[in-house]
């Protein structure tokens, strides 16, 4: 794997020869703390984990585990549908928040709140809102219709949708902020010229905004997908993977195996995700390390 190979190169390989200037010696000394952390807490765990997951029987066990297949599908739904919806909303809202109005400025300050507060209390708050017996949602349904509301989190489709909703709630502000910076970087005279030419709202978006933002937008989408793979909280704290382990995603599944003391299965499930993750990571590194 890439990490294990390149880990060796990370060592300050040239010997401490007299050719090294004092500045270079200091360079190595100052780089050493990070290298130590990297070796001890990235290289070693990753190698150890891969070694644990080496037996093919793990992958057979995973293949035969319906929960794994379900988690893989859920993860795909989360990434492909969830992230794209989120980024489209962020793109739309970035246009809204870029408007020069006092009340919109204030709203944007409030809008950041989900990003600024920790996710645990707010996710638990949402979870309780949808509690079938005591939650405020079913109370409202009861008082308006006289019927008992549904047992929201007991339906895997609804529960997964809500986990995606919670994820969007939490991270939408961040991506909107980034897309706002992208929008504000577009030269305003382009829009003024388009205005003079009588361009419609859609034409302005299609021929000015989108061409200048598409690279940023696609980068953001890919980055968000990589990070969302690691979003443990949205699913775990809302549904706990339930009902009947039907709403797991890969990140919660790995932890589930870990808690069942099946560490090699946990690692194997992560290794299975690597063919999808590594190309994305490679692409992002190409983009960011210019």
């Amino acid at each position: 794997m890439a990490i294990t190979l390149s880990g060796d190169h990370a060592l300050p390989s040239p010997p401490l020869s007299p050719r090294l200037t004092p500045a270079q010696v200091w360079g190595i000394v100052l780089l050493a703390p990070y290298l130590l952390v990297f070796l001890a807490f990235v290289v070693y765990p990753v190698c150890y984990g891969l070694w644990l997951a080496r037996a093919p029987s793990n992958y057979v066990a995973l293949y035969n585990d319906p929960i794994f297949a379900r988690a893989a599908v859920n993860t795909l739904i989360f990434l492909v549908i969830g992230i794209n919806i989120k980024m489209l909303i962020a793109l739309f809202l970035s246009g809204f928040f870029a408007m020069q109005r006092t009340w919109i400025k204030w709203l944007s300050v409030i809008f950041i709140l989900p990003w600024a507060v920790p996710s645990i209390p707010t996710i638990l708050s949402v979870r309780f809102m949808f509690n079938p017996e005591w939650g405020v949602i079913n109370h409202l349904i009861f008082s308006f219709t006289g019927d008992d509301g549904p047992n929201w989190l007991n339906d895997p489709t609804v529960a997964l949708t809500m986990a995606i909703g919670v994820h969007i709630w939490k991270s939408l502000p961040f991506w909107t902020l980034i897309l706002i910076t992208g929008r504000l970087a577009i030269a305003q005279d382009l829009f003024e010229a388009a205005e003079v030419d009588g361009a419609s709202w859609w034409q302005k978006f299609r021929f000015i905004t989108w061409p200048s933002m598409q690279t940023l937008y696609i980068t953001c989408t890919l980055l968000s997908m990589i990070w969302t793979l690691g979003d443990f909280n949205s699913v775990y704290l809302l549904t706990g993977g339930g009902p009947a382990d039907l709403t797991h995603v890969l990140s919660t599944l790995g932890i589930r195996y870990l808690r069942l003391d099946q560490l090699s299965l946990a690692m194997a499930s992560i290794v299975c995700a690597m063919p999808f993750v590594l190309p994305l990571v490679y692409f992002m590194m190409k983009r960011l390390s210019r």
Partner: protein
Amino acid sequence: MKLPGVSEFSWRDVATEARLLLIGIPVFLWTMIPIYHMFLFAISPKEDAFSGKLWPDHPTLHNFEIVFKQQHYFLRDFYAQFWNSTLIAAAVGALTLFIATAAAFSISRLKVPGGRMVLNLALFTYFIPAAFLAVPMYRTMGNYGLLNNHWALILAMVTIASPYAIWVLKQASDKLPVELDEAAVMDGATTLQIFRLVYLPLMMPSLVAIGTYAVLLAWNEYLYAFLLLSNDREITLPVALGNFLAADDSPWELLMTTGFIYALPPAAVYYAFRRYMVGGLTAGAVKS
């Protein structure tokens, strides 16, 4: 044509404003409902909290009193846990700053051989989803004998925070003119003096941003905290909040109150440093 400064009533403007409100109001509700719901629970007595009212009949601070006096089974160790969270966040902030600043200085200013490679490795780590690294990290900490020790969480969070910190600080370092270092060398400054007297003062804004980033990351972390710490007196606040769920008859009003208290410091820090965070971090996160 409308002249600037002359306000003129027009139906067109009203329609535009109405359309904007049609976006603004749902955005406001969507953002605020979960937070308001949490706040509502925090100020409601137990009976009101579970009655589905939108405002309690008798708003009270009694829940806060229970939390601060640790008068509930789930809250026995509230202060210890709050202290753990604070201590770990502070340690992660300080260690990350130290490691990342040294590395960024070394890579960007001293041009250490192999620096480019280290930067790429750090970036690579940054893109590994944290929940994936958590699995082998848990076992590794066990091998190191650090489980249930605060150092386990501190070191894990430093590992996660430093790649991005190094990357942002390296970008910021590159912007400082080389002439500064050269001039200092001319004056006979040693490398350490350049680091301390030239580099650090100029990097202050980025250091504030990165320190805040690392502190918030550690304070907010749930997954690693709950994997690596388990003893009731050693865990951090988010783990304690998660533990409320273990019981069937969880005191949700107390859970929400504790959650509210837990959410206040990061929100305050975020808004206090918003200028740095929004400018420094988001622009750095995605270079277009």
